Structure formats: C-alpha cells, structure tokens
C-alpha cells in the first residue's frame, strides 16, 4: 500500500516537472504525443561494464496516430524519485539507446558498474512531450567473453591445433616435405662466390624492430649465413638501423661462430649501429658498398622506400643480391633489381627451410593447412554467395 502511495505522489510530483504550470494548462490533452511504454534498462553485452542499453516500445504517436514525435530523449537518475538527468537523444522511429559511460574514475562521465540506475524516455514533438514510466533498475557489468568475436576464437583454436599437431609429428621424426625456394638455394652458392673473391658479405636486416615478424625471420637466416661465413672465414658486415636489432644480431652471429667452432675470428665491430634515420642509413650503407665492394648482399627483413637505392647501388657495385621482405610496396624493386627475391611469406618459410628444424617445419605445415582451409572456404563461399546461403557468410562476420 505504501508503495502505491509513493508512486501516486511521484506521478503528481513529476507531472509538475513534466507539465510546467504556464504551459501545462494551455496545452490541450489531445496534442501531447502518447508516451513510450515498456522501458527496459539492461547491461550492454560484450563491453567493459560501463554502458547500459535502454530499450522501449515506440510511442503510439510515432509514425501513426498524431505522428508528432520528432525525437526521444533518454533521462537517467540514481533513484526512481531522484532528479532525472538527460543522457542522450535518438531520432523518432528508433527504440534503442546505449548510455555509454567512461571507465576512468576521475572522468566527469564516469558510469560505475554494478550501480543501479533508473531510466525514463521522453517522446518529444516541437515543444510538447510526454514521459514514460520509470523503468525497473538496470546496472552495467563487464562480460567475460565477447560473443561477437566467436569466429576469431574458433580460428585461433583451429590454427594453434594445426601448428601443435604438426610440431609434435615433426618432433617424432616424421619426414615433412617443403618445396625448394629459389632464393634460398642461391644462399650457399652466393657465399661461396664471396669466399673465392676474398670479398666481405653485406647483410642488411632491414629497418624493422626486433619484434617484427620479418626481422625475426631474418635473424634465423642470418644465423645460418653467419655459420657458413665462419666455416669459409669470409668477413660479414652488418650495419644496423635499430639498437635492439644490433644487440640481437651481435649475439646471433657470435653464437653462429661458436657453433661453427670458430669463436676466435668473430669481430664484434663488424656488427655496428649506423643511424636510426632511414635515409642517413641508406647513404651510409651506400658508402660501405662502394668502399668495401662486397661480393654478396643480403637484404632480408622489413624494408621501406630505401630498398630501391640499396638494390640499385648494389648492382652498380656488381654484387650478387638476395632480397626478401613482406612489404608488398617494395617487392617490385627487389624483383626488378636483385637476383633472387623471397616474396612475403616465402621469407618466413625460408627460416623453416634453412633451419630444417622439425619444429619450424611443423609450424610451416600448420600454416599450409590453414591456407588449405582458407582455399576450401573460398570455393564454398563463392558457391554459397552465388546461391545466397547467408548462413555460411555470417560464419566469417567478426564484430570488433
């Protein structure tokens, strides 16, 4: 009984707000648009717990009847009788509004999660409006799993499963076939040429940082090349663009010389930091090429606009050049000006092919199976799309 009394009192009380005296009586009963109904406030799914979604049934006068609803205003308050604050507007015809709050405690728009909020929706014409009842309390909370990202979850599991299966197969000694790569077969021959001519080898790891995938693939190939130069006692020059890459290169080469049983002829100053400016670096490398005249140049890793100058100057100096990058904008110059080019994924495969380690071969096979799945879904997708099977297409739809 007490609840009803409060409710009635509230209705009277809020009506004063809703119908300010001077306007209330002048406005006829008929002009006022019908108020929206069934207002519900619930947590916005798949979010960090600072946003509440408000839904309601359109006012009877929206698109029909008096049809004088222009906009819906959503108001929020901490308690049913409390003071309502405008949170946002939505044009007529729409019945959903997301009350987005900030997660930062200091920000003025902070919306704490797990706190109960009450909403009312105001159907508004020009100057006249009517409010819905106050909704049941709703509160925001963070979800533990983003359902929109399910396709990615499946892809991650499938991809990791492929890789792990093939790695364990490789570890059990199963013979895994990888097709020969033209660029890689030329590595030994190119190093041999440098030894005959008694000239150094120039190895450029590219402009990428130590954690970039192309740079890491380049490290693996460098370790194999350095082992070869240790055996043939040919000097190897590695001017570096990034301090961390320099440090890692020094250790890779030192370890390779150790493995080849020639730690004595390893010279730390051959792996040096030149500059971290793209074009100062390329000018410096050009100077080295023209002065030292290396017999073989390796450009393996992340390259940008300077790739053409390196390849062009290298060909002027008459060296054999083996290049490889995953930067698609630079591959045309490497294809045009160098002798062998590892295109995109071939650079990653080269580390597996060269290393011949079972584990690297295993991941490469896992990748190939991933590609096989992509190829199959490409064909099925084309068929499904032509016959309009929407279900199949949604499998790949990812909500960010």
């Amino acid at each position, binding site marked *: 009984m007490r609840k009803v009394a409060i409710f009635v009192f509230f209705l009277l009380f809020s009506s004063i707000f809703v119908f300010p005296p001077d306007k209330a009586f002048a406005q006829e009963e008929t002009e006022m648009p019908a108020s929206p109904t069934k207002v519900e406030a619930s947590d916005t799914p798949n979010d960090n717990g600072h946003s509440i979604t408000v839904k309601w049934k359109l006012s009877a006068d929206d698109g029909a009847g008096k049809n004088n609803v222009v906009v819906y205003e959503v108001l929020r308050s901490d308690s049913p009788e409390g003071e309502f604050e405008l949170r946002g507007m939505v044009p007529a015809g729409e019945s959903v509004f997301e009350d*987005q709050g*900030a997660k*930062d405690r200091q920000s003025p728009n902070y919306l704490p999660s797990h706190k109960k909020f009450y909403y009312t929706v105001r159907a508004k014409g020009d100057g006249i409006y009517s409010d819905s009842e106050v909704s049941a309390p709703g509160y925001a909370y963070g979800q533990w799993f983003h359902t929109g990202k399910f396709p990615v979850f499946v892809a991650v599991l499938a991809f990791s499963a492929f890789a792990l299966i093939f790695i364990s197969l490789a570890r059990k000694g199963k013979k895994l076939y990888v097709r020969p790569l033209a660029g890689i077969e030329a590595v030994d021959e190119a190093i041999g040429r440098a030894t005959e001519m008694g000239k150094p080898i120039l190895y450029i790891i590219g402009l990428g940082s130590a954690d970039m995938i192309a740079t890491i693939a380049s490290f693996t190939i460098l370790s194999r090349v350095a082992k070869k130069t240790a055996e043939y006692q040919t000097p190897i020059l590695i001017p570096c663009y990034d301090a961390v890459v320099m440090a890692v290169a020094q250790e890779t080469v030192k370890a390779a010389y150790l493995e080849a049983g020639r730690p004595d002829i390893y010279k730390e100053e051959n792996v040096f930091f030149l500059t971290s400016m793209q*074009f100062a670096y390329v000018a410096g490398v050009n100077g080295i090429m023209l002065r030292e005249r290396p017999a073989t140049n390796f450009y393996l890793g992340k390259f940008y606009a300077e790739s053409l100058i390196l390849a062009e100057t290298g060909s002027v100096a008459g060296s054999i050049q083996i290049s490889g990058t995953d930067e698609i*904008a630079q591959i045309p110059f490497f294809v045009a000006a160098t002798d062998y080019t590892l295109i995109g994924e071939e650079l990653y495969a080269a580390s597996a092919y060269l290393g011949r380690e079972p584990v690297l071969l295993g991941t490469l096979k896992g990748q190939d199976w991933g590609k096989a799945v992509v190829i199959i879904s490409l064909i099925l997708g084309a068929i499904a799309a032509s016959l309009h099977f929407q279900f199949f297409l949604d499998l790949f739809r990812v909500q960010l």
Partner: protein
Amino acid sequence: MGFFERLLKIDRRIIFTLIAIAIAMPLFFDVSMYVETTSEVRGVFTAVDTLSAGSKVLISFDFDPGSMPELQPMAESFFRHCFSRDLKVIVMGLWPQGPLQANWALDVILNEPDIKAKNLQYGVDYVNLGYTAGNEVVIQRMGSNIHAAFPADYYGTPLDDIPLMKGVRNFDNIDFVYNLSAGYPGTMEWVQFAADRFRATLGAGNTAVQAPLMYPYLGKRQLVGILGGMKGAAEYEVLAQRPARGVRYMFSQGIAHAVVIFFVIVGNVAYFATRKKRKES
C-alpha cells in the same frame, strides 16, 4: 662496339641529367592540363561538399616531410574547401611531424584573400590537437573520449577550455574524418578502428605508393573515397575549381612519366638487339 652496345653502356649520370631536365622544364610553363577526375576522388569531394555549414571535420596528418610534395597540396585544397564552406576543422597527427606540417598548410590557406576575409579564430573555427604517441591505440581511445586521447592541444591549452572542442566527445560528434597517410599508422588503422568500429565517415589521401593498397577498402562503409598521389591532389583541385600546385605539378609528371616509359622501351630494344651477340660470346 655497335650502337646498341654503347646504348647499354650509357653512363648513369646522363640518365640522371635527362630526368632532371624532364622535371624542371615543365615547371616554367603555366599549362593548366586537362585532369580527368575519377569516382574515388569525387567520393571525398562530395562528402565534404554536402556537409552543412558549422559541421565538424577531423583531419589527421599521418606523414612526414618526405611525403609532403604529394600530401601537402591535398591538405591545402582540403583546408581551402572546408573554410570556404564554413566547416569547423579539427587537426591532429599520429606522426610526430604531422601537426607542424598542418600549421604550414594552415598558414598558406589562412592568408589567401577570400579565407583571410572571414578572419577565422583559433579555438573557435579551427584547432590543432598536436601529436600523441600510441598509433592505433590513440584512435581507439578517441572512439570513447577524445579528451582522454588529447588532454591538451598543440600549444598546451587544455581541451576543456577550447570552445570548438566543447561538444566533441567522440566520433559521433564528428561529421567527416579525413586521413592523409604515408604508411603506418595510417589509413588502414583509421579504417579498422574509426570506420569499422566507431562508424565514422572516412575519406583518405595517400601517397601514390600506398594508394593501391587501400582500393580494397573503398565502399562497404569503410572509405567514401581516396586521393592517390599528386594525380589525386590535382583532381581534387579541379573539382573545387581552384587549380593550384597540384595541377601545375601534373604537367611535369606527365613529361617525366613519358621519359621513363621511353627509357623502358629503349632499354629493352637495346637489350634484345644485343642478346644474340651476348649468347655467342
């Protein structure tokens, strides 16, 4: 040695001099070449042309001085177009030198007679938010709250004291986003976060090298249009009926490209003519 052998053995410096002349000579002639406009450039132009006065436009300078000859004419013609249509311009940069280059472009446009007459106020008609490190994370944070991503503008004044930024909380309050990009972070990140995730209307201007990479993003609510290299800049100027540096450079580009194609043909003819001899030796 036959004519073709000598042709193959041409000293590189002769080629360099030829190219230098091919580029420099056309700059002396004031020829306004016919530049055919493509649909991808019209996409960006109409997106800006249909905005009502006072709507807010965000332009992000994500390139360094090395790409200025291609992207600075785009920036200048974009500013001229926005100010002539009384749009509010918000400038930012995901590359450190971006905001500085924006100021150079603003100096050029704000001193043009018809724009100068409007005596636009900093902080009311245009604002420069400066650079923040963080690449695509900055765009992500702007999606929820621009004031968190850019606490202060290029000159250090807090965003809350800037009138223009008052009503701007995230991409819902921005009518058009334009990104001038020369690499990473650039248009790909703006498509992934601003367009895909926060539904912003996005147009882009790219260097000629990057432009073909962005074609797959045209349409499908990702990119309304794209300007590629100097040709894109010239097309935008022609659409705005204000030919400027873009068009003047296009004549020089035309000659330079003709010379390069000529080199390709001559190089191959000489190569094939001498192939038989090389096989014998």
